């Protein structure tokens, strides 16, 4: 899922500025899973804003809504009849959600309340680990389902750097050495011979350098 973290409260408050009628919109999918922008987090932020406003003797009106997904127009449409009653929308969606809402409501000020980070897995309760950087040219099968772009700090495609110690990365000792993981998994799945393969550099043009990427499926279009 896409992972994100909530922005610091002071930054959010500064973005809101003098607005008094605020609609906070969460998303029930990725950012709910990583406890950043779901219904609970919307309620928490709303409560913080109200307490802060009360302390400063400032009257504000805060409404809370959470969409199933903030990146799908059919869900965003639920905001249309509500949004005009508010001066600003504070979005707890990922970057895609914020921009999708802005696309549907072009005359509404949409403020992002999250910093979107990466594509992650829930490794355990409360721990979200980056697994994918969306390179657009997945070679996980070559590397025993361990992504060297994401999980090797040096992004090496052809074996370890030699700097790891006790299976931990030289650049980030908190992380396991990705190539140790690759080797362990190749061994566990009976594919150690593939370690002799030499892989060319990634085709980075599939990831960057051409503006926003787009996928079109005519069979899926209306």
């Amino acid at each position: 899922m896409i992972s994100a973290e909530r922005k610091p409260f002071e930054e959010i408050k500064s973005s809101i500025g003098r607005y008094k009628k605020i609609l906070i919109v969460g998303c029930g999918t990725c950012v709910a899973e990583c406890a950043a922008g779901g219904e609970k987090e919307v309620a928490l932020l709303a409560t913080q804003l109200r307490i802060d406003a009360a302390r400063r003797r400032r009257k504000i009106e805060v409404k809370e809504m959470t969409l199933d997904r903030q990146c799908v127009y059919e869900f965003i449409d639920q905001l249309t009849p509500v949004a005009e009653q508010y001066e600003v929308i504070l979005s707890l969606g990922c970057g895609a959600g914020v921009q999708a809402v802005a696309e549907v409501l072009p005359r509404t000020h949409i403020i992002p309340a999250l910093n979107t980070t990466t594509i992650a897995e829930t490794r355990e309760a409360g721990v979200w680990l980056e697994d994918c950087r969306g390179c657009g040219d997945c070679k996980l099968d070559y590397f025993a389902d361990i992504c060297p772009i994401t999980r090797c700090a040096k992004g090496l495609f052809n074996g370890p750097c030699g700097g790891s110690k006790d299976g931990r990365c030289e650049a980030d000792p908190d992380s396991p050495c990705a190539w140790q993981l690759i080797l362990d998994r190749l061994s566990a799945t009976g594919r150690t011979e593939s370690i002799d393969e030499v892989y060319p550099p990634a085709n980075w043009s599939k990831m960057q350098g051409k503006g926003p990427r787009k996928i079109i499926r005519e069979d899926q279009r209306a």
Partner: protein
Amino acid sequence: MEGKNSRDYTAIFFCRQIDPDENTNRRALEKQLGRAIRFFPLPCSGRIEALHFLMAVETGAEKVYLVTCPEGSCRYSQGNVRAGKRLEYARGLLREIGLSAECLEITRAPGSLPLSIDTIARGLLGLPRKVK
């Protein structure tokens, strides 16, 4: 104990396992203190959420206590441990908006269960014990 206005109160969240007769035992204090105290029984202290703490503060709680089962006594194993982490997270959220985190306090029920929530609450509030 009575607040300057009807919104100032003390909130006590607690695990029901501490006092199976809590529904009866908290009535005396509720009658004595009126709106100045509110009890919130939980199926386990680990079910507390940061939102509960913040909403208590928003609705006027000057002090919020979370009473957990003694160490090793949680019937769900780690509920009372998780409760502490949730409280710390809520403290961080209060600090973010410039409030003192000390208004949230966690305490373990002393001794072996069951214990009267009335006795625990009176201890927290510094009130004399109920005369039987």
